């Protein structure tokens, strides 16, 4: 799959990636590498120039109901008169009936919403205006909103960027619990933090390098650990070039070596 925003500068090329059920994938790569773009392609917000994307066997955009999404930028409409809880309740929209009428009743939804906020340690801020929350708190609200959609695949674009270290560990544990029945893709710059949780790593820098679970248990991850995120991709390419460094298990989903 190829993609460019204006038809000239190719942002992503030769991407070939399969997200398996129950996967927990970290997407890493330098700024401007195309991580957010990749996520937006999967969501169907962007259309690929070449190649195709299938989500649960369907064209993206058809099955957005099954996808949960936490955008990278949570500072949209900061002055909007809306409470944290109401933002979370937007996650109830469009799950079933027509024209966004929720199948869940209002009551159920509100209970769910409060419980989700509670799980993210945001219960006491539920009735605050979204603009009165800090960046990290706002991020938690957006995560809660994505969880409310009861997705089968959860796409998180740098969800922990503004969250303190305590909250980050809690949040990753929460993701781990969710991972029992939801596939998760998380864009992150902090591979260290997620290393104990993820099952696979995709490195995006205009091209994509995929490392499955079996692979990262071996040598490659150690090589990656030694470097900053910006260096990871280059190092990985080198690592792949080395004999014996995880070349064997790249069968079903892989970028170009």
């Amino acid at each position, binding site marked *: 799959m190829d993609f460019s925003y204006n038809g000239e500068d190719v942002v992503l090329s030769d991407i070939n990636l399969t997200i398996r059920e129950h996967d927990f994938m970290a997407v890493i790569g330098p700024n401007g590498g195309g991580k957010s773009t990749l996520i937006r392609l999967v*969501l169907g*917000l962007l259309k690929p120039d070449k190649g195709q994307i299938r989500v649960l066997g369907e064209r993206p955009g058809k099955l*957005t*109901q099954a*996808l949960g*999404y936490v*955008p990278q930028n949570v500072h*949209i*409409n900061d*002055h*909007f*008169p*809306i*409470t944290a809880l*109401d*933002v979370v309740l*937007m*996650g109830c*929209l*469009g*799950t079933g009936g027509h*024209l*966004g009428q929720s199948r869940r009743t209002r009551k159920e939804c509100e209970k769910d919403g409060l419980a989700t906020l509670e799980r993210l340690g945001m219960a006491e801020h539920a*009735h605050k*205006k979204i603009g009165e929350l800090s960046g990290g708190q706002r991020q938690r609200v957006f995560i809660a*909103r994505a969880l409310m*959609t009861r997705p089968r695949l959860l796409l998180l674009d740098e969800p922990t960027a503004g969250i303190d270290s305590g909250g980050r560990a809690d949040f990753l544990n929460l993701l781990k619990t969710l991972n029992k029945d939801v596939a998760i893709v998380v864009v992150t710059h902090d591979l260290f933090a997620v290393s104990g949780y993820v099952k696979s790593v995709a490195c995006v820098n205009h091209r994509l390098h995929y490392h499955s679970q079996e692979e990262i248990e071996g040598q490659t991850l150690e090589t990656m650990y030694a470097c900053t995120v910006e260096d990871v991709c280059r190092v990985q390419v080198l690592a792949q070039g080395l004999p014996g460094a995880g070349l064997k298990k790249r069968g079903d989903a892989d970028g170009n070596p």
Partner: protein
Amino acid sequence: MEILKYEFMRHALAAGLLTSIICGIMGTLVVVNRIVFLSGGIAHAAYGGIGMAFYFNWPVIPSTMGFSLGASLVMAAVTLNNRQRADTVIGVIWAVGMAFGIILVDLTPGYNVDLMSYLFGSILTVPGSDLIIMGVIGALILFLVVFFYKELMAISYDEEFAGLRGLPVRGIYFFLIAMLGFTVVMVIQVVGLIMVIALLTIPPFMMEKYARSLGTMMAGSSLLGACFTMAGLYLSYRFDLTSGAAIIMVAGTVFLVTLGVEKIWSFMPRTVQPEN
């Protein structure tokens, strides 16, 4: 209240209150969606409809509504994909609609004194029949906004997410702009097309900071708008002023004063008791 002795005054009050409510509701949506300029465009383009009404001798409100609806849908179409960069096209429709109206009025035989009232409002001469039309449209808008409240809130706050949840974002946007077209024609009756934006946006601007939901912002703006309209109406009756201008002056003055007070307040050192 001797002021209520006159039938035209009772009509004016009713028209003012109706518009305040509708302006509070629609103005809130205009402000949170940042489509103030677009509403101005619709208001001015609506003059084309007034021109057509005069030229073809059609009833004014229906033909203005039709024209304004058409103009607003064209604007919705051009702003659909990039709401920020559409101001040039809106500006063009704004001016062309107006020019079209002026030319049609030029071509209409006879001189129409009445025309000024569409530019500056004619709340003191609203006939009962217009009041009924306004009431019906107002009720319809109120009903639709209440019914589609969640959808409107979702696309206003986060269009992308609303789309991902499977809401028909474009449809709802068109629907919003169409309602705006109707609203604008109603408000033209009261303050005239030149001052529509003020009545539509000043109350919601003032409420935005304090409201915690769209609903409270709408209710608060309606109330605020009603106060402005009543006060302006009284002043215009008392001192024989153009009613639309009086209403806008009241709203504008209150707005600027509160803005000033807030500014001074935020500059005041918090630990020191203010002296007075």
